[in-house]
């Protein structure tokens, strides 16, 4: 399948993450200074040249677990802290939003317009920090350069790869349910009306030709839908009207949104060890990011995705405080050991609170000992 999914995955999932964090920071009445710092730190890390360089290398799309780990680390590049339960729900929200966008994407090429919608909004979030804006612009240019020449067939392969990645995820999102974008069973509604995608004809016409290529007969057939002609095409440049609405910030009106989990996460929690390539990718991506030393600066703060602090504590169980100490331990290890990238990540995995179902961190450590 496609070897070019990662950059688009991070831009879109990362974008969704920033949309949600922005909404929660505002709902939490976080000071503007803190909010700006969080956004700038995450954007600065995500759009750094080193990180993008790694993503742009041709490679497979790895597991949900790897993605979630990297996105958690991205979030922790700021002074904000999320406990694992919050991160799980944040991840579900991000993935369901992106799944919706990819599924409803009118043409495979419009995946790029969806990505550019995310980039446009992220640029807005950091508009007061020229350095961050530059990074977003530079990333945008690289994306245009890399993906601008792909054929529709190759972009459809990319989209199909993403759809396999999202397969069987039906987490219900209350904002989607309310807007009837998602059905109560968790499946997305596909409209059979509206404008056809750009470059596609409205269905309903049969044209027949003679051997000289002249049209000799034309007839219509009933289509069972109500489509209209396509509207103008969106802009694929650095700036411009994207026309496609998918990928825009759906949280820009303040609702405190929650996720309802339809069933426990199925796929990726099996106790299989990460494949070696996947672990190497993880090492390289993590190596591009620095975790803020919260304890030393004393400015760290926690953020809620749940409605009350009490729920936050219950969901986090013993996790919340441990992750704070986890951060400190990592920094200490970094100072003490001039160790390999993998060993440092091993330390992080060991410190994260464990799943009640198994000791995945231990398996990883054991595997790394064998490498």
């Amino acid at each position, binding site marked *: 399948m496609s070897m070019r999914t990662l950059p688009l995955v991070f831009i879109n999932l990362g974008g969704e993450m920033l949309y949600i964090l922005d909404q929660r920071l505002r709902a939490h009445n976080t000071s503007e200074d803190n909010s700006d710092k969080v956004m700038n730190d995450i954007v600065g890390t995500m759009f750094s040249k080193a990180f993008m360089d790694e993503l742009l290398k041709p490679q497979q799309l790895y597991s949900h677990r790897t993605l979630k780990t990297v996105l958690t680390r991205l979030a922790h590049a700021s002074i904000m802290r999320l406990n694992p339960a919050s991160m799980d729900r944040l991840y579900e929200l991000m993935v369901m939003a992106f799944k919706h966008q990819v599924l409803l994407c009118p043409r495979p090429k419009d995946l790029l317009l969806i990505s550019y919608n995310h980039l446009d909004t992220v640029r807005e979030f950091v508009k007061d920090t020229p350095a961050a804006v530059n990074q977003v612009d530079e990333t945008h240019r690289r994306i245009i350069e890399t993906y601008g020449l792909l054929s529709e067939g190759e972009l459809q392969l990319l989209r199909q790869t993403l759809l396999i990645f999202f397969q069987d995820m039906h987490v219900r999102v209350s904002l989607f349910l309310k807007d009837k974008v998602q059905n109560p069973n968790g499946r997305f509604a596909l409209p059979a009306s509206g404008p056809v995608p750009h470059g596609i004809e409205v269905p309903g016409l*049969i044209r*027949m*030709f003679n051997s000289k290529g002249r049209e000799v007969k034309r007839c219509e057939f009933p289509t069972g839908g109500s489509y209209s002609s396509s509207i103008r095409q969106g802009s694929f440049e650095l700036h411009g009207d994207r026309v496609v609405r998918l990928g825009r910030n759906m949280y820009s009106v303040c609702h405190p949104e929650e996720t309802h989990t339809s069933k426990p996460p199925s796929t990726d929690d099996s106790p299989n060890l990460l494949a070696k390539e996947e672990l190497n990718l993880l090492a390289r991506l993590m190596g591009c990011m620095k975790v803020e030393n919260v304890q030393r600066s004393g400015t760290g703060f926690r953020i809620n995705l749940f409605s009350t602090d009490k729920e936050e504590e219950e969901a986090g169980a013993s996790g919340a405080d441990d992750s704070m100490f986890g951060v400190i331990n990592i920094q200490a290890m970094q100072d003490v050991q001039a160790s390999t990238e993998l060993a440092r990540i091993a330390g992080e995995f060991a410190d994260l609170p464990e799943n009640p179902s198994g000791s995945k961190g231990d398996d990883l450590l054991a595997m790394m000992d064998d490498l």
Partner: protein
Amino acid sequence: MYHKEKSIQIKNSASALYNNLSVLRIAPRSLTYFTVVHANVVNMVSASWDGLNYSHRQLQSKEPNVATSTSLIMQAAWCVLPSRDLLVLTSQKGIQMYESDGSIMVYWHALDTPETPTAQAVFARGIAAVREKYICVGVSSGAMLVFDIPTKGSNITLAEVLEEHKESITDMASECSGSLECIADLVSADDAGNLCVWKSGEEFQLLNKIPGFDMCCSSVKLWKGTVVAGYGTGQIRLYEAVTGILHAEVSAHARWIYSLDIAPFSGLLLSAAEDSLVRVWHLTQTPETNSVEIAHMYNECVTDTQICGAKFCDGDGYAFAVTGYDLSEIIRYTQT
């Protein structure tokens, strides 16, 4: 014209891949086999015609004797040859051929995969049985592998590599009317919409090349010398295979077409797309005027589903089956 029957439940949901349903009718045993691809697994169901017995089997794309390697499967399809039926799986790693019930793997062909991944994806896609003894499989580079199939056993060999396409192969189809008069045996399609028409033999001969317009042809069929092609633009085009003359163009769907099928005895055509619609058409050939006409017969909407596979279950088109992305069932329809 058709009404919905009881669906067949499958173990996993269908992946969003072109032509993601294959059907094999086994009349002597009153059974029909179905296969649906889910990521790195092929779900096979055998359904008895009385609707009482279903049995399931799963196949993985795996190199023989290599425990940990599985890869994503692009397509699974039965190849019907006079002497035997084989189930062919194409994946990122290679091509596997099984006995038709999926019980024994009889052949494995590995694709050349580079040490470090390149930007161009590597995979096999596009499967067709041709005449008495060939199975053709397409590759992402545009190459087509022609395998020589003995009447029984596993002594399958790669006979020829055809390098005409420059873009990834999407689908292939052999002449399905059963007529021996047709000159063209095989049509192949690629990501740029180019179609190649071939005559089989010791060396396959290229009869014609029909250019695409940079719009992917995702599904193709060949019937009585007419190529029926489905495109990402939602259009269906009918071409005379050997000359490339365009007979008809239909603005059939509002989204990417994922599957076409023809019932060879009746000339019924099935088209299915991401727009949730399955449409049934009728093809008529008038040899005197050398024209082919297409008429619309029926629509079926599978609500909120992007369809990825649709096939007739018999040669007359009395029944058809449909799969959709994220759906864990095979939906069936029969004529009223």
